[in-house]
């Protein structure tokens, strides 16, 4: 019976049934089987209105949409280009850093590829990077930055992990700190690769650092520059809570894009807000029904049984970690981010802590896997977004992006087997 239901839901999922309905179906059936009144599912969805940290999600998303609709992406690219563009591989590094910052703010929804890729791809070609390298870089760039504050997947993982009452408890602030070094590792590795792939510049004029251009670009970006300092500084110093950082970001971005620069006309505002809130609604409803599913799973002691089963078959920790990576990568590719986080965390986190993993380390490892799963062949979502956006066949995108995938996969292995990378900033190695 269980197998029949599982197969039926899988088939419905592949035919395009929305994730929230699939997750809700599991929760409803589970509670029904245990003899509960189904109103309990509504009680769980209602908890979306009881957690202060969730207020951050619509606010950060709104800020991200406003920024991507303004000319901020172009200014960001122009400024980083003026600062590091003269180095070998400079422009590629610009692309990586700008994309990471942008993805951290907008979440992994493919917005980075669409909004920044549109600026970066032609710029890379113009600077004589090969088309294959540029296409691969733009595809991979959509997967950078998930580990940096204030990325929504980090917040969502934190919220779900808190439901499970792990020891030590998971806090969103800890996750923000823990993601810094692993995120930097991924960026650095790709930056070094970019330097080795950079075209030979024969014209010495292009090589020189231009003070005047740099100054002009910085002045041009004067309103955007304080934002990362304000938000990241506030969050990383522990002075403001995530929801306050979100309020600050949203209000600041609104003032800059709509009131000061007027790049977004007031009349366009309702449509942009509607678009952003639709995305938020989709994510939060999945989170709401996932609360119900988590509650059912704990009530039915499924994670405990799963742990006992896994422990019986996998005795060595390093083997467990390897299997965990393969598992998370596969589901990261298939479930595209948020659904993977809300469904897999309650099932897998108790197993990981059972093997002695720190829940914060697990979170970073989980999201690192998810973010590269986004462009894992053959079904990773970002492969398709790049393919549509730049009108290239998916097979070509896959060929172009696999070196980036291999490098990032090596980083994921390092993050898996060296907990120190994630935990050193929390001072609990």
């Amino acid at each position: 019976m269980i197998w029949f239901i599982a197969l039926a839901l899988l088939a419905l999922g592949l035919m395009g049934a929305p994730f929230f309905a699939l997750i809700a179906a599991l929760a409803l059936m589970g509670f029904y089987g245990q003899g509960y009144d189904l109103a309990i599912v509504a009680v769980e969805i209602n908890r979306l209105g009881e957690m202060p940290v969730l207020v951050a999600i619509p606010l950060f998303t709104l800020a991200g949409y406003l920024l991507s609709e303004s000319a901020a992406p172009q200014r960001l690219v122009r400024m980083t280009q003026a600062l590091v563009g003269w180095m070998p591989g400079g422009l590629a590094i610009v692309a990586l850093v700008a994309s990471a910052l942008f993805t951290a703010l907008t979440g992994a929804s493919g917005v980075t590829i669409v909004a920044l890729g549109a600026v970066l791809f032609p710029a890379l070609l113009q600077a004589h990077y090969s088309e294959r390298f540029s296409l691969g870089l733009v595809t991979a760039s959509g997967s950078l930055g998930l580990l940096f504050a204030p990325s929504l997947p980090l917040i969502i993982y934190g919220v779900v992990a808190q439901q499970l009452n792990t020891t030590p408890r998971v806090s969103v602030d800890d996750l923000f700190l823990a993601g810094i070094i692993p995120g930097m590792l991924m960026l650095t590795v790709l930056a070094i690769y970019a330097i080795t792939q950079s075209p030979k510049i024969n014209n010495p004029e292009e090589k020189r650092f231009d003070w005047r251009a740099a100054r002009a670009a910085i002045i041009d970006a004067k309103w955007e520059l304080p934002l990362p300092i304000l938000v990241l500084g506030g969050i990383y110093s522990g002075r403001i809570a995530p929801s306050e950082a979100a309020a600050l970001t949203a209000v600041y971005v609104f003032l800059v894009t709509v009131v000061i620069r007027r790049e977004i006309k007031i009349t366009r505002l309702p449509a942009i807000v509607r678009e952003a809130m639709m995305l938020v609604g989709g994510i939060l409803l999945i989170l709401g029904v996932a609360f119900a599913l988590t509650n059912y799973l704990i009530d039915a002691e499924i994670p405990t049984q799963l742990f006992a089963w896994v422990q019986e078959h996998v005795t060595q920790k390093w083997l467990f970690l390897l299997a965990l990576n393969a598992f998370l990568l596969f589901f990261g590719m298939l479930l595209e981010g948020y659904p993977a986080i809300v469904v897999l965390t309650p099932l897998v986190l108790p197993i990981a802590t059972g093997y002695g993993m720190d829940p914060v380390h697990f979170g970073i490892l989980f999201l690192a896997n998810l973010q590269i799963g986004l462009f894992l062949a053959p079904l990773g979502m970002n492969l398709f977004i790049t393919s549509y956006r730049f009108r290239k066949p998916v097979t070509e995108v896959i060929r172009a992006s696999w070196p980036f995938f291999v490098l990032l996969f090596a980083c994921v292995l390092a993050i898996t087997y060296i907990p120190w990378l994630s935990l050193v900033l929390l001072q609990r190695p």
Partner: protein
Amino acid sequence: MRFLRGLADGVAWIENALLASLGLGLLIAAAAQLGFRFFGSGPVWLDPLMRTATLWLALVGALVATREGRQLQIDVLTRYLRGWFGHAARILVALFTAGICALLAHASWTLVQLEYESGTEIFAGLPNWWALAIMPVVFTLMTVHALSFIAHPAPDHLQPTP
């Protein structure tokens, strides 16, 4: 038929307007909260108000996403479902989604009744069931939107942008 089309357009307009207003309202509340924090402490009802707005936003946003066929889903394979099999799959998915939404509507209606009887407040004398009343409304409308996909498919939103 024309009446139905007009009704659907009207409902869509209200949903869109409500969603945009909730988003902008939350932004204004956030600005107020920052201001209050700077000058000391704000009114006690501001935090619960923002949390309730988040619940409403989540539900109305999901409602609009359902109407436009833009809920998160695995949509890499659906584009290869063509012909009668594609039709059958679409109808099956629509019926399944509508069924789940109907169950959620029923469950949340029960919750609203329970809250009504218990008489708890969210803030400033406002009964809690007011805040929850959005749930059965949204899930009922979602059921209708999901069923409407039997008649016509959702627009494909992964088209290349110009």
